[in-house]
């Protein structure tokens, strides 16, 4: 495992305006390889806007997003050519949607879903693609015999795990997750979180995870950013932020969870 002090991602002064309204404002942070950053806040606080801007899906009004590419070193993702950016998005990056239907192809089999990224980067050997897909199915705890089944025959939790496998097959270094456990029941959430934590650790993934669920944030993330009305109001180590919140809003957020 190679650990460097070079940041993998550097976000500087990012602002996204929707006309006069603020999407997110003046957000800056760095992310190092293997680091998990949680972004929490109530709905409408700009979490998803921020995630879209960082993940090159929506160009921000102001500010830069720089990424440490494998070949060319640090690059501004919005200055790259579209071809480069799309290549980056389907090889070195991954995006896990809240609704697995947004991230899966529902009309092709699980194996084809996992194999798509491999074929997109030029893999042309059916046997190899299939065995890779099969081994990834195992890693996300789906039985091998479901390899040729359509995702629509899968349960919600399985679809979410399939989406994760499909994204991780090209060994990305940075994964964006938008409420990955939303819409799943509590026991399935717990298993998914367990699985994610294992994968993040084993593959040394850097993750930016957006959630409104503080329990998810506590379990997965090393660092936490709390957002309110488009601004980052508190930023620090997860334990620190959750156990000793400084900002009034963070205190409210933390105290609003049922304590046992």
């Amino acid at each position, binding site marked *: 495992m190679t650990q460097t002090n070079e940041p993998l991602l550097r976000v500087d002064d990012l602002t996204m305006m929707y006309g006069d309204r603020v999407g997110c404002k003046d957000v800056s942070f760095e992310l190092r390889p293997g680091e998990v950053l949680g972004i929490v806040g109530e709905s409408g606080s700009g979490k998803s806007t921020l995630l879209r801007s960082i993940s090159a899906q929506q160009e921000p009004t102001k500010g830069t997003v720089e990424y440490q590419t494998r070949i060319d070193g640090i690059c501004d993702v919005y200055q790259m050519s*579209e*071809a480069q950016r*799309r290549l980056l998005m389907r090889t070195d990056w991954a995006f896990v949607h809240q609704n697995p239907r947004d991230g899966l*192809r529902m*009309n*092709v*089999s699980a*194996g*084809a879903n996992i*194999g*798509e*990224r491999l*074929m*997109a*980067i*030029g893999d*042309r*050997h*059916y*046997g190899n*693609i*299939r065995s890779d897909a099969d081994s990834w199915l195992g890693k996300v705890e789906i039985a091998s015999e479901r*390899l*040729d089944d359509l995702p629509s025959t899968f349960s919600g939790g399985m679809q979410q795990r399939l989406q994760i496998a499909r994204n991780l097959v090209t060994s990305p270094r940075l994964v964006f997750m938008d409420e990955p456990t939303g819409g799943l029941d509590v026991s399935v959430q717990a298993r998914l979180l367990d699985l994610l934590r294992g994968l993040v650790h084993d593959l040394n993934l850097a993750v930016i995870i957006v959630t409104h669920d503080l329990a998810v944030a506590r379990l997965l993330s090393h660092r936490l950013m709390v957002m309110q009305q488009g601004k980052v109001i508190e930023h620090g180590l997860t334990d620190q932020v959750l156990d000793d919140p400084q900002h009034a809003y963070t205190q409210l957020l933390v105290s609003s969870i049922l304590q046992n």
Partner: protein
Amino acid sequence: MEQTVKNPADGTSAYNFAYLDEQTKRMIRRALLKAVAIPGYQVPFAGREMPMPYGWGTGGVQVTAAVIGPNDTLKVIDQGADDTTNAVSIRQFFAKTAQVATTEKTAEASIIQTRHRIPEKELREDQVLVYQVPIPEPLRFLEPRETETRKMHALEEYGLMHVKLYEDIARHGHIATTYAYPVMVDDRYVMDPSPTPKFDNPKMNDMAALQLFGAGREKRIYALPPYTKVKSLDFEDHPFDVQTWEDECGMCGARDSYLDEVILDDQGNRMFVCSDTDYCAERQEAGHRGPQHHDQPLGSADRGKAAQ
């Protein structure tokens, strides 16, 4: 160049030459030139309403109308046959509106409009093959967004095409796509060869004749200039191959042509016959006989010998 067809009743002009007006033909020719310049690229064009329903070859008819001249000889085939409704009516359409000579002989035609097949006889440099295309976008069934498929073509993102082939092998054990089998043109664009059987894909590669594709409903034109590299997509461990038949043509005994299956009764009897009617007729004229030819009693001992 203004050419008109006179109305025989009163001598006034009934149609402009080849039905379309000159401006429209010029517009289509511009699209064709662009298509030839960028092999496999789908060029949008302002497709006109034609006096036939979409799906009956409105795209092919417009392309033919734009390239046909008074000295051309037209052949029209549908499923390889010259005598099916669609082929007959399109042939009559041009005989009436352009007063061109028509033929059923592949060798005599200068323009061949086709729905599915490429004639078995090798085409020459002085011939043009016009395809009627229903859905020009090979990525359509996997990616419904037009904006996205255009981007994929622009950036050569063709992984998705292999997802379809992967899915075929996963479900059927082999690539079960038998028609509209996707091809890579000139190492650049993935192209849908229209609903031609994959049997004809190898003929597209390095063909001497100019190949033009017209999709009327979708309003797209694309082309393969003569001697263009056309490669069918496949996997390293599942290479592309064409259909084969154990039988020979029942009429002419051909073993190298694309055969249609004909059900003879409800007792399970069937026969195979060349899909290319001109090829079959020419072979029969040359004395070749298949087992079901009426000159040849069924079960004759020397079946197929005439084909030697």
